[in-house]
């Protein structure tokens, strides 16, 4: 997940982002500037004129918004000649975007009561979407289990077969697109021995991998949207390259792009904490490689493609082999990201749920006690619990239990122990400056 996602208070209210995508989609079909402007404005104005209650109810507002957009679009279509609206590609895509509205209509006819409408249209909408858009390639990451019996050791034998100016081919089939690669600052970082001895300075290879979700705008994964999908990826690559974000990005067709060269530091992990058997690692940009899936991670949609999982598996194998990266140091961003000032975990939460460890030949780190909690006494707030759909990963509980046990052995309150651990963290953090 990259930094900035929020923008300014606009005076005429903008609808929720998912509905804005509909508006964006429909207006892209209008070929005449003033008409396009008319369409957008009249939809927004009509929406703004709705009672505030309607605009606040999640599903209802979606239905109303789609309905109003459709009305404006219809008015425009009726009053325009053919050249103004680009119809050919419309039906399938239109149906997709309007599925909530269509459902509302259906349910209105059937006569569901309000509460049922809410629940039913939600599942119903997904059901309808699934039928409208064939998505055989999309898998829910949580359900992935490609190589159930794979060992968590990196394979012993993968090599670079051949390379050109723009591509590398690896013996496990992975192609790495190097056309957009940029170099940044060389790696140079401190690692903190767990035995308390003084930190060790390293300039060498990365010690681990942090996995991310790019969280950019994403069109549905279907043939009709090919153009949009490619455009979005291209925009994303340009942005990542300019900002030196992530070392690798994997698009939805499983193509792997090297963005920032492996020897250089990419921006990706921000304030973060991890540890292996011997060392603590703080702020992992410098010491860990960042790999992003082009995906929208959230608690209710965690969709990545089979091609992405395959590519991530191959890439992980290559990196682990090349740098001797241990399994323990391959973790998703959500498990390492912290708010250091407030001593809270899960500042960025990408992949704090549903990461396909198994498919990638990695041990499930959701079961591992995060060192942020275990060793440095970090906590979490309700907001994180909310963002993760009501439950944190089991490792957090484990870490808290371990901490409580240590406190009782030392016969002090857990809070006191936590305070001491946090102070220790501050010490280490100071040494980074």
């Amino acid at each position, binding site marked *: 997940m990259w*930094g*900035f*996602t*929020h*923008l*300014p*208070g*606009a*005076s*005429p209210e*903008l609808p929720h*982002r998912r509905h*804005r*995508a509909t*508006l*964006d989609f429909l*207006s*892209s079909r209008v070929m005449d*500037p*003033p*008409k*396009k*402007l*008319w369409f*957008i*404005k*009249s939809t*927004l104005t009509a929406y703004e004129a709705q009672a505030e209650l309607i605009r606040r109810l999640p599903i209802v507002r979606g239905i109303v918004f789609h309905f109003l957009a459709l009305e404006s679009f219809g*008015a*425009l279509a009726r*009053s*325009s000649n053919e050249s103004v609206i680009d119809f050919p590609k419309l039906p399938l895509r239109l149906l997709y975007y309007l599925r909530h509205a269509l459902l509302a209509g259906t349910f209105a006819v059937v006569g569901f009561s309000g509460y049922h409408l809410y629940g039913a249209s939600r599942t119903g909408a997904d059901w309808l979407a699934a039928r409208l858009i064939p998505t055989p390639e999309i898998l829910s990451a949580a359900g992935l289990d490609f190589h159930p019996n794979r060992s968590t050791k990196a394979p012993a034998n993968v090599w670079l077969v051949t390379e050109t100016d723009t591509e590398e081919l690896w013996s496990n089939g992975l192609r790495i697109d190097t056309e957009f690669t940029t170099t940044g600052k060389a790696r140079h970082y401190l690692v903190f021995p767990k035995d308390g001895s003084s930190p060790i300075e390293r300039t060498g290879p990365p010690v681990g991998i942090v996995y991310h979700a790019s969280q*950019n*705008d994403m069109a549905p994964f279907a043939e009709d949207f090919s153009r949009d999908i490619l455009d*979005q990826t291209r*925009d*994303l690559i*340009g*942005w990542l390259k*300019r900002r030196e974000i992530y070392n690798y990005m994997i698009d939805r067709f499983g193509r792997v792009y090297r963005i920032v060269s492996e020897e250089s530091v990419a921006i990706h992990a921000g304030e973060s904490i991890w540890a292996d058997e011997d060392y603590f690692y703080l702020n992992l940009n410098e010491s860990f490689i960042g790999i992003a899936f082009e995906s929208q991670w959230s608690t209710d949609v965690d969709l990545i493609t089979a091609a992405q999982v395959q590519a991530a598996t191959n890439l992980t194998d290559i990196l682990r082999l090349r740098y001797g990266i241990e399994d323990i140091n391959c973790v998703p961003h959500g498990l390492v990201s912290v708010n250091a000032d407030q001593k809270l975990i899960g500042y960025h939460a990408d992949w704090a749920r549903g990461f396909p460890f198994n498919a990638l030949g990695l041990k499930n780190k959701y079961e591992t006690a995060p060192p942020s909690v275990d060793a440095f006494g970090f906590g979490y707030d309700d907001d994180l619990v909310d963002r993760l759909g009501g439950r944190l990963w089991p490792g957090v509980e484990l870490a808290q239990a371990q901490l409580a046990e240590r406190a009782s052995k030392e016969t002090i309150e857990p809070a006191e122990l936590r305070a001491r651990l946090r102070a220790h963290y501050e010490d280490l953090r100071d040494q980074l400056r």
Partner: protein
Amino acid sequence: MDSDVANGEGRIGLDIGTSKIMSVRQSGSQLKATNEVNAFLPLPYSKITENILLQNKVHYYQNNGHFFVYGNNAEKFAGLFNAETRRPMSGGLINPDEPAALTLIKVIIQGLVKKPRSKSDLVCYSVPGAPADAPNDLIYHEKLLEGYLTELGFRSKSVNEGQAIVFSELEKENFTGIGISAGGGMCNACLSYLSVPVISFSTSKAGDFIDKSVGSVTGESATRVKMVKEQSLDLASSPKDKIEEALHIYYDEVISELISTLNTSVSRASSEAHQLDRAMPVVLAGGTAQPNGFRERFERALEASSCPIPISEVRMSPNPTQATARGAFIAAVYDS
């Protein structure tokens, strides 16, 4: 929806700028732009002067023992009569210190919009962003213009100049992106999302600032600096003399002021409610953006700054001097 939205009959876009006023209207299937320099030339009354003006069929306005030649003719005759032109506007707004401003701007506007053909004819005119230090000046400016247009028999509405750039240049992006007009009196910018203006701002360092500053450090007149700037400046190659060197320096100053204002406005206006789900394009327009190399300089400076929003590209308007008026025209047409 009104059926006459289909065409631009009776709709006019008007760019009321510090250095020029431009109208855009529909003519057949084309758009037609007409342009008057926003300046006038006061000439003391004399029979000879009157004869020259009459022979040349020059429109003028007479008051207080003076002829006032205005618009493009003002520049044309300034040399002939060896007199200095004056301007009704400064810094993007009607100049309160110029006594002749009100009348002359009205005369120039009238020459461009002509007479309405029906009561529903609509003029959409551009206004700058409110100056941070004197927001009320904009209200005065806007009300005066609205008053003139009403007097002339038009319905009218105003559009922010940056937003007008978004309307004319970012149609493909469904009016999402940042429009910037770098003009004479000021630079205006607007960040819009699906046509909704989210942030708009203006800076007072623009073309006139460059002319004046370069003039004062090189000892040249602003008029001469302006000539060099408009005719031979190339920001992509290294400066060849003192004037060019100073032009490069003050161009950088204009750009850096624009970018730092953009960055602070964006960070200041941050709220959870408006997630930006894609990178935004920036479009550059206006007379000051015209020299070769301007776009590249701007892009480099923007990349080097810590702009908090993702930018997909920085592109130049294909028609930098007409972009505002065309955008105002689109705003006039869509409004049924």
